[in-house]
């Protein structure tokens, strides 16, 4: 039973797609799967995928809950920049690194709660609500860094971005930890069910006694927090807070990851692990193009093709054609 379940889980389209992309990479670049042990850490292209994919995966872990509530969080890229800017300016100003890290996380959480406030309390559509911070956030980050790339050498911040644990890059370790924590949070409690309920029908959820406002605050807060973690990682990675470029357009990748992971932008059912798989698919493509020496212009085109592929596979139309047994979505939307 569990065996069969595990097997059928393996057979889902996302994992197949990941395997597919990895195989293509392997064909284009035979050393793709070569992993060596280097100075106490694993080293190889696959590890790069795990490492480089971590920030988007972490964003996706936060984003998936938001999307499940029928929302979207456009501000995560900007929040990454803000968090990095806060941490960097604090350590440069001489504060101890743990203080800087905690402050950055708090700022991320606050940004998320602000979004949650707009969505849950003022009842503003998520796209516009988070567009506010998407636009203003990067401005705030630049305000904090005064337009400079604030560089640092603080060992803790650098460790977060480039360290390793048990041979794995720290970013990957953090992403895995967040994946496990958030999955437990939503699945071992009723939060996951409530998120889905709010996403499917918020009015009904409120009448059924779900505190949908608190839940939305939680979900957006978590997304902000995840963005801050990702922001710390990318800042640590280059030992500097680059308000201009940190997290630029990553919100789109994160949303893409979630959608590739099978969570509908219309809200409802969601899966955190599959969102992470989505992030890995995107990164596997990026890395594949880089190592195989393809001109990066093609990156965007391949990405577009991938989206269409996933959409066609997941679309109700295809489901109708391929698996006649599954129920079909209603006409219209």
């Amino acid at each position, binding site marked *: 039973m569990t065996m069969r379940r595990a097997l059928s889980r393996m057979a889902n389209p996302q994992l197949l797609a990941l395997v597919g992309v990895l195989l293509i990479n392997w064909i284009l*670049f035979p*050393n793709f799967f070569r992993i*060596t042990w*280097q*100075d106490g850490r694993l*080293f*190889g*292209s696959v590890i*790069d995928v795990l490492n*480089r994919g971590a920030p988007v995966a972490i964003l996706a872990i936060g984003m998936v809950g938001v999307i499940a509530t029928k929302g979207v969080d456009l501000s995560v890229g900007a929040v990454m920049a803000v968090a990095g800017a806060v941490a960097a300016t604090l350590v440069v100003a001489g504060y101890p690194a743990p203080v800087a890290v905690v402050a950055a996380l708090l700022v991320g959480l606050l940004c998320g709660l602000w979004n949650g406030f707009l969505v849950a309390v003022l009842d503003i559509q998520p796209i516009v609500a988070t567009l506010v911070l998407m636009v203003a956030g990067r401005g705030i980050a*630049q305000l904090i860094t005064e*337009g*400079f*790339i604030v*560089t640092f050498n603080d060992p803790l911040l650098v460790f977060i971005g*480039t360290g390793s644990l048990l041979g794995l890059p720290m970013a990957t370790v953090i992403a895995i930890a967040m994946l496990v924590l958030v999955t437990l949070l939503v699945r071992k409690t009723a939060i996951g069910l409530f998120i889905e309920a709010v996403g499917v029908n918020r009015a009904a959820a409120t009448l059924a006694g779900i505190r949908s406002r608190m839940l939305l605050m939680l979900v957006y807060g978590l997304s902000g927090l995840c963005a801050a973690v990702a922001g710390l990682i*990318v800042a640590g*990675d*280059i*030992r*500097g807070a*680059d308000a*201009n*470029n*940190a997290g630029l357009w990553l919100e789109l990748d994160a949303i893409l990851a979630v959608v590739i992971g099978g969570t509908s932008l219309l809200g409802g059912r969601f899966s955190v692990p599959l969102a992470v798989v989505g992030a890995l698919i995107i990164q596997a493509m990026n*890395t594949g193009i*880089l*190592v*195989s*020496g393809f001109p*990066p*212009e093609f990156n965007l085109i391949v990405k577009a093709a991938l989206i269409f592929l996933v959409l066609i596979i997941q679309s109700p139309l295809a489901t109708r054609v391929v698996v006649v047994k599954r129920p079909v979505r209603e006409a219209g939307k």
Partner: protein
Amino acid sequence: QDVSGKVIGFSQIGSESGWRAAETAVTRQQAEERGVDLKFADAQQKQENQIKAIRGFIAQGVDAILVAPVVATGWDDVLAEAKEAEIPVVLLDRGVDAPEDLYLTSVASDQVKEGRVAGEWLVEAVGDEDCNVVELQGTVGSTPAINRKAGFEEAIAGHDNITISQSQTGDFTRSKGKEVMEAFIKASNNAADICAVYAHNDDMAVGAIQAIKDAGLKPGEDILVVSIDAVPDIFSAIAAGEANATVELTPNMAGPAFDALAAYWADGTEPEKFIITESKLYTADSDPQGEYERRKDLGY
């Protein structure tokens, strides 16, 4: 010669690299020293914003306009408008494809030469040994990226032992520089085949240095690192033996620009059309620690 009391607009590209932030800071500093009322507009990497800013300056009736143009094309109309309003325009650090009479002068480095200086250093450094170079390019399509590539290729032409084995854009940023370098390393047999990295700016070089270290190699020894800009961080890397050379691009483009304007206003002296700044090479022998100290507060 005096520009004090003048209102001068400065349309800056953005702040994509440490060098550009420094240029902004130095321009402000220069303006303050000379008593110029500087109107600053940052275009966030967008040409349309720069055009808007210039037209805004014209509408405001400034005395002169400085522009660091993000791309070379598309300036004719707006420059003509400035000319019609009799406002002199000075180009900073990048050139344009427009008739020369539309601007007073252009203060810039010779970007081809920068690439060439970097290339010549490498030719010297490797001697007769075979060397595969990986190149981190600047923003796709930008003039510094095109010119620095051309200059470097010019310098290594005829040295068959040196070849560019891989070349990708790193967008002038550290993070892209690092990510692309990581891929280069994997793609070349864990860097066994790479002898040097040439980065179109220091930020990408700093990123690349970290990638090299992560691969368990020693930047500066196992892989030579040469780049352009001369920002403080590259000097600390040179001091630590992790980078080998950088070609200076002075952030003080505004100084010569203000000088030219002052002369022009004083007695109508037409400045030279192209004021070329120096492209000086710095290596481990040029007191990197000292250079670092000298620059670190310059707003890089």
